[in-house]
């Protein structure tokens, strides 16, 4: 039953985005954000067997914060149309999210401020793309970008977080498929709420992996993973803007390159000499007895 819920959570945002774009054109982006947050919440809560609220496990605040960001983003939707309004929305959401997270490494005021600023900055940088690019390449780039924090979480030994971020990445991939199917009539924009959810999942997901990491992974890899969705900006670079096809390819390639760099750094941790996950078999050859 719980596995079925997980599948529904991954497919739901694509269904909501398609239906909303076709039936409710103006409010569609708001619903996409909430549906993406619902995918994050469901995938995390399924793994925690729908434990009590407020959660006793600190990392379970991640999906709740993402849901709050989606609701705030959806509420800010109409009021934050201008550049200034969007900037204020990003800062407010970043600070609210950072204040709520009770994680080790992020408890000090300056750490929370840094995390809030990172969420706000990532949201602000992604917003111009999220509000205007609703095509397959954008969703594909974001989906690839979220693979980076997911793989990093797995490499640091935090499989539940990896699955949660992976679920949102997967949901983005399905929205991309829906965008490809429904084009050119409908564009499935992420809108303010959806873009903020994506930025929040990337930044807060990486911050969670960093907070609980015991493997000594360098901090810059977490920063790179958080910034992976921003690789989509490569499609807006002057050399690639001329052609829609080249721009789309560059968008995907930009996110793929950053994600590839993160995976490259994680490979030795994911595939060490000795198998290291809870399901692995110990098949290392032992030296013969003297």
């Amino acid at each position, binding site marked *: 039953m*719980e*596995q079925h819920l997980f599948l529904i959570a991954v497919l739901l945002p694509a269904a909501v985005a398609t239906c909303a774009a076709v039936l409710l054109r103006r409010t569609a982006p708001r619903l996409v954000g909430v549906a993406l947050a619902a995918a994050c919440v469901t995938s995390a809560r399924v*793994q*925690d*067997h729908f*434990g009590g609220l407020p959660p*006793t*496990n*600190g*990392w379970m605040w991640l999906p709740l914060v993402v849901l709050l960001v989606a609701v705030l983003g959806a509420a800010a939707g109409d009021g934050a149309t201008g550049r200034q309004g969007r900037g204020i929305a990003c800062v407010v959401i970043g600070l609210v999210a950072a204040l709520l997270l009770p*994680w*080790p*490494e992020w408890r000090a005021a300056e750490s929370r401020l840094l995390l809030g600023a990172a969420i706000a900055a990532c949201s602000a940088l992604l917003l111009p793309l999220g509000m205007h690019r609703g095509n397959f390449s954008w969703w594909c780039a974001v989906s690839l970008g979220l693979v980076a924090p997911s793989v990093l979480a797995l490499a*640091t*030994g*935090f*499989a*539940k*977080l990896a699955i949660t971020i992976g679920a949102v990445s997967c949901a983005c991939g399905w929205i991309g498929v829906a965008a490809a199917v429904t084009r050119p009539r409908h564009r499935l924009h992420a809108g303010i709420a959806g873009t903020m959810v994506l930025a929040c999942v990337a930044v807060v997901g990486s911050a969670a992996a960093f*907070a*609980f990491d*015991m*493997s000594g992974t360098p901090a810059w890899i977490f920063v790179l993973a958080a910034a992976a969705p921003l690789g989509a900006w490569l499609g807006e670079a002057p050399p690639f803007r001329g052609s829609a096809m080249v721009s789309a390819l560059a968008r995907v390639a930009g996110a793929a390159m950053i994600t590839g760099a993160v995976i490259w750094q994680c490979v030795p*941790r994911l595939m*060490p000499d*000795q*198998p*290291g*996950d*809870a*399901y*692995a078999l*110990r098949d290392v050859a032992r030296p013969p007895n003297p």
Partner: protein
Amino acid sequence: MFCKPCLIVLAAAASIPFFAAARPTPISAVEPVSARAAETWKIDSVHSMALFRVQHLGAGMFWGRFDDVQGSITTNGDQVGFDVMIDPASVSSGNDGLNGHLMSPDFFSVKEFPQMTFKSGTSEKIGSNMWKVTGDLTMRGVTKPVTAMIEMTGRADMGKGERVGFEATFTVDRAEFGVTYGVDKGAIGKDVRVIVGLEAVGKAPEGKI
């Protein structure tokens, strides 16, 4: 002055008290706990550990251990009391990668919950060296009552302070403590058997623990 055989006999006689003191006293020969006054023992963390056993992929039993076990034991008449603290970051499986996974929030979440504790409540003597002890186990911020079977494994003074040994065995449902990773499909068993080997010292000579 003395002939050689006499010297050997004298030397052997003189060494009897030394050997008698050095040899561990069997439990049957020690003064029963009930006859003693209340005593508090400090757990020797170097010679104490906690082992856990859980079924892996529905097949074999996987064993892990915690190396850092601290706390105190009280003995008072027929009653025994335990106040044990375990550092989950001392978990050891013999595999670095697996140790990292065990320390993550998937299992013990050591950064968030840096201590596991067991505080005993009531104890019932059920044999000459056996007790049934009920107490509160706190793991990952969740406290649940557990009942442990505890055996006194020995008591001796071999020149490094009087020492007492206990072995506790109990089973916990890890899902009750929020450790749910791998429970869904039974990939990793839900019931975990825990065996805690404790050695504690009474009045230890300076620097001899």
